[in-house]
């Protein structure tokens, strides 16, 4: 029971920190980040304790930690909510714990804690730097004007993610999911005075909301069908799964399980930025870099994958290792397509963070595709390793940008974009820690053989696709892997190797330990996280370490998934694409100048890629503009203004016309005579009443009230008699 209490407590410290910072400590930067980091640390500690406890349970998948309370009284029963840690959530909790804590610490350095306030800094805009008191004429970085607020927001973000992970039901999972949506909105738009940040924040919120409304339908459909939203009751219950798999839904051909799975999956498409709802993620780079790491690695996009992993028994209900279910086929297609599609865009981006953004989309596509072909364990494995190395890469890129910003402050030329890789070069020597850790992250992303975690997880996905005969998926993913290695090496070469291309890059400098230490910690995981999942029959080293990951996570499913047999072909393919891509990337970019050598080679294709296949423009034209026009011109002006109010006004006119007829034809000749007589009497009374009629509304009211009360008391008297 004690472990269950710990689980309940995990999300609370960040929530508390959020309120504490906003209500009390917001004027004190040191206190605010102390509260924030301490909260993250407490959650980390609680999470680790729970994780350790989970490791100590035999057959943990059958004996999970769970506890629930009644939440909503409905009809004759209750909707209960609670917490549950099973192998899947334990693993997710582990990486969320570490990445979140590292991001919190990193933020202290990133937002220039301890630096002076900037002379021209305004809340809502990134800091511009301050005059150096010791060295007149020099500019140093200035502290973020909304420093405390940042920690409050990421604390709420962490709360959302922890809520999502420890939930034992879809409803509170959705609560955490949406709170993260709000936080990503607030944080992407953190520098809200920048129109680009404002627009990116709205775009992120709206695009993910498209997915969310479908997901909401999926949730209510599941609830309506099963009468519960509890994971164990639905997903660890063969009877319910069987029922869902065999009941038809109203959409022809789909089973209930299929329909619900697809609805829920659309939620993931939005949250995890899969094609066609991928457009928000690259723009989300407008936020401060720790936020990018938070969104791209630790929390938001991982949440999308986590949800489909969680729902995998439902998604795969009715799948007997033969034909994939409809939902799985859709996932395999969207995932594989997104993996390749995003990788091609990443090749032509100049902004160091945007490359990573597209690589995230692409890697998430991997996981979705893996789940689509039923490679449950491989998908989860890749989720974990990716979280570590992508958090590392994002924080590393933030460190690079921060370093180049130093250079910008030094030269004073604010036109130089510190995020453009073609303004960099040679940073290896200026920022050694950032370089080495970024290199590790980059190699892990490329799937550099044996050493890095990315290799093991990616290889497992490819092996699984090959073993089960999903050759189309296999080929597409292999191609994407090739591109991944290529653009990663392009990025490393452009940023760190060669000679500095600008003065700013020459004057870049390494960052404070608050930023570099998290990089080192994460790089350890970027390497070592892969060792827990080495296939048993891998040549030479297989079996040296037990494939712990597979055994542990497999327990989360009713039917333990079997590991695939070893095959040389996917291994060789995986080696070739990783090493080939890396080599090619180095060869093409080692002597690159300020223009991309690929531009010439690819011609118009490069322009197409550079502009992300014009999806933004397309959506603007076919969705955003028409929606605006529809609301303004049709819904508001035409429907309400012309049709409905037009009818009302017509009715009013008619009534007035009728009144006029009465007055002229009937009232005048017939009634007026009588009325004249009456009028004289009235006039006389009126003179009397004029005493009352002062023209003041108060007076009138007084009379009204008196009359009302007269009635009231009269009636009271009646009762009393």
């Amino acid at each position, binding site marked *: 029971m004690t472990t269950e209490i710990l689980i309940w407590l995990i999300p609370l410290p960040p929530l508390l920190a959020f309120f504490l910072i906003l209500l009390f400590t917001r004027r004190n930067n040191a206190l605010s980040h102390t509260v924030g980091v301490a909260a993250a640390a407490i959650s980390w500690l609680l999470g680790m304790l729970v994780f350790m406890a989970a490791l100590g349970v035999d057959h943990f998948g059958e004996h999970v930690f769970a506890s629930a309370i009644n*939440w909503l009284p409905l009809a004759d029963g209750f909707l209960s909510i609670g917490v549950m840690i099973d192998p899947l959530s334990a693993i997710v909790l582990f990486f969320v714990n570490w990445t979140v804590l590292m991001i919190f610490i990193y933020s202290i350095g990133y937002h220039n804690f301890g630096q002076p306030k900037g002379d021209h800094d305004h809340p809502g805009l990134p800091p511009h730097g301050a005059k150096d008191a010791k060295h007149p004429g020099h500019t140093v970085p200035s502290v973020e004007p909304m420093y405390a607020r940042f920690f409050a927001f990421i604390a709420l973000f962490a709360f959302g993610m922890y809520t999502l992970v420890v939930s034992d039901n879809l409803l509170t999972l959705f609560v955490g999911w949406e709170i993260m949506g709000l936080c990503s909105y607030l944080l992407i738009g953190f520098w809200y005075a920048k129109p680009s940040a404002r627009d990116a924040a709205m775009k992120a919120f709206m695009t993910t909301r498209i997915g969310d409304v479908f997901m909401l339908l999926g949730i209510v459909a599941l609830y309506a069908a099963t*009468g519960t939203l509890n994971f164990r009751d639905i997903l660890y219950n063969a009877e319910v799964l069987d029922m869902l798999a065999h009941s038809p839904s109203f959409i022809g051909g789909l089973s209930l399980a299929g329909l619900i799975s697809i609805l829920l999956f659309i939620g993931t498409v939005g949250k995890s930025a899969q094609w066609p709802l991928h457009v928000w993620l690259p723009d989300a780079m407008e936020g401060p870099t720790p936020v990018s790491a938070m969104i791209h690695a630790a929390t938001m996009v991982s949440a999308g994958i986590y949800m489909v992993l969680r729902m995998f028994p439902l998604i795969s209900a009715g799948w007997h290792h033969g034909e994939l279910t409809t939902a799985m086929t859709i996932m395999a297609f969207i995932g594989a397509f997104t993996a390749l599609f995003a990788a091609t865009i990443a090749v032509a981006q100049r902004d160091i963070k945007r490359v990573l953004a597209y690589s995230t989309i692409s890697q998430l596509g991997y996981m979705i595709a893996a789940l689509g072909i039923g490679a449950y364990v491989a998908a989860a494995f890749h989720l974990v390793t990716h979280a570590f190395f992508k958090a590392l890469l994002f924080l590393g890129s933030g460190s690079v940008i921060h370093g180049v910003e130093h250079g910008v402050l030094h030269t004073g030329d604010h036109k130089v974009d510190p995020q453009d890789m073609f303004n960099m070069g040679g940073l290896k020597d200026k920022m050694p820690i950032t370089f080495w850790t970024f290199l590790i992250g980059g190699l892990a992303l490329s799937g550099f053989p044996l050493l890095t975690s990315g290799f093991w997880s990616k290889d497992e996905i490819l092996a699984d696709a090959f073993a089960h005969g999903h050759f189309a998926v296999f080929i597409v993913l292999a191609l994407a892997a090739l591109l991944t290695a290529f653009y990663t090496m392009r990025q490393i070469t452009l940023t760190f190797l060669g000679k500095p291309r600008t003065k700013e890059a020459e004057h870049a400098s390494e960052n404070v330990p608050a930023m570099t230490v998290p990089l080192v910690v994460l790089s350890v995981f970027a390497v070592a996280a892969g060792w827990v999942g080495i296939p048993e029959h891998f040549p030479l080293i297989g079996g040296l370490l037990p494939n712990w990951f597979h055994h542990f996570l497999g327990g989360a499913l009713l039917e333990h998934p079997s590991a695939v047999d070893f095959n040389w072909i996917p291994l060789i393919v995986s080696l070739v694409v990783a090493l080939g891509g890396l080599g090619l990337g180095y060869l093409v970019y080692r002597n690159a100048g300020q223009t991309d050598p690929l531009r010439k080679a690819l011609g118009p294709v490069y322009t197409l890629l550079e502009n992300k296949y014009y999806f933004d423009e397309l959506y603007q034209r076919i969705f955003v503009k028409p929606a605006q026009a529809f609301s*303004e011109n049709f819904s508001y002006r035409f429907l309400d203004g012309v049709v409905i109010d037009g009818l009302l006004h017509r009715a009013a006119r008619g009534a007035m016309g009728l009144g006029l007829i009465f007055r002229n034809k009937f009232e005048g000749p017939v009634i007026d005579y009588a009325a004249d007589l009456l009028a004289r009497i009235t006039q006389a009374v009126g003179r009397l009443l004029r005493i009352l009629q002062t023209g003041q509304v108060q007076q009138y009211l007084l009379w009204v009230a008196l009359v009302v009360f007269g009635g009231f008391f009269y009636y009271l008297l009646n009762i009393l008699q």
Partner: protein
Amino acid sequence: MDFINQNILSLILFSPLLAALVVLLLPGQNKDLTRRVAFALSLVPLVFTLIAWFGFGAAPEVDGFRMQEQHVWFPAINASYHLGIDGLSLSMVLLTVILTPLAILASFNVDDKVKAYMALFLALETGMLGVFLSLDLLLFFVFWEIGLVPMYFLIDQWGSKGGERQLWNGIKMPSRRYAAFKFMVYTMAGSLGLLAAIQMLGVVSGSFDLLALYQSWPALTGTLFGYEIGTVKAVAFWAFAVAFAIKVPIWPFHTWLPDAHTEAPTAGSMILAGVLLKLGAYGFLRLVLPLYPEQAQQYAPVLAALATAAIIFGAFSAFAQTDFKRLVAYSSVNHMGFVVLGIAAAAFAAGTESANIAVNGAVLQMFNHGISAAAMFFMVGIIYERTHTRNLEEWGGLFAIVPVFGALLILSSMASLGLPGLNGFVSEFLVVRGTWPIFTFYTALSMLGLLFTGAYILKGIAKTLHGPLNEKWRVAEGQAGHFEDVTRRELLVLSPLVVLMLWLGIWPAWLLDVINQAMLKIFG
């Protein structure tokens, strides 16, 4: 104590009217005193309601209602002064007595004819409470109409200044007069049918007492006035339904609402959106569904279709606005659509679990919308008072100047949007959950409205708080045009609302339990 316990509902009902009288009779023209007295007295019904709330469970229940009071009123036509509450009316009464003091506190900046203003507000409260407490159709109707008059004056006298509304043939009318008139006449037009139908029910059944009518009227068979009873009932059903539909308002009867809201004074909008709209929905739940179960079931799909139209077109029209207050007004159309959708589902499949969940969600949504709409209108009022504009295009980047206001605006907006963790989500979730198996198509379609809720909410935030600061508002302290962040009085108005948003978002059981029990009674 005995006196209080036996007449608790009458005390709740008439204490505001008494307060209005006291305010009017206050000596002198001290405006500040008037305001303070009005506010202090407006807390009296709140106290009585809390007494009723805590005594509710223990009070004996007769025919589904507790704390009943019945006295002779119009013995000749069998109409009596009959009050009583169940969970439905109790939650609505609670909403009313919470929002009225806040609205009065929000009106401390009203400087024109303060006494009359405050008195009208308090009188309005009695009108609204009467609707929720009456167990007699005639009494119900009386209070239904009483509520109209103060609101008419509030809009017409204290509404926003300036602005003209083009009618026909170039005839123009001051905007607020137009709005007040439209509000009044439209509602009255609906009331006509209602009154006629009530009369018919009373004549046929020989009583206006609701408890008696619940028994006799739905069971009536045969012919009436030479027509098939079903036909008569259908006509009466529509008379009731249209009156309430106008009040809710259900699309396409909604166009009075943006006008009235936009022109009403801030506190007027708070009450209008917070409570008055609920009267319509309450009418459906208290009268239409129980009195006409068959007709309600028969026409529920129509109701659901109109509700879906309200959700979708309400969201789209809100998104089209450049006037922030009008945007919030349209958001009411959108949110009340979910209430009606839930009610329609309950009408269609009464007795099923899904119907119960849907109607629970609908009632909770009524309460939640009251809270968040009041907060939103107040936020708009705050910024209007400072900048003297409601035009979204004239703001921008205000977050930097008024951070506390910004934070509260974002919070209220998110509550209005239905963000999980805040109140609106729970009720919307329940409505969607309940209606999905009953009206799958409409539920799915309404998601389009839910999506665009996001669009207009974000538009409001972005145009007000975000983006580059409009230099017009960058005024140094001490100079004309400079404005302060939220004041303490304003915080005092907002904090109960904020607390309720969070409380109902995280732990709605305390309210939902009360509602659920009533819904089980009414809809089995």
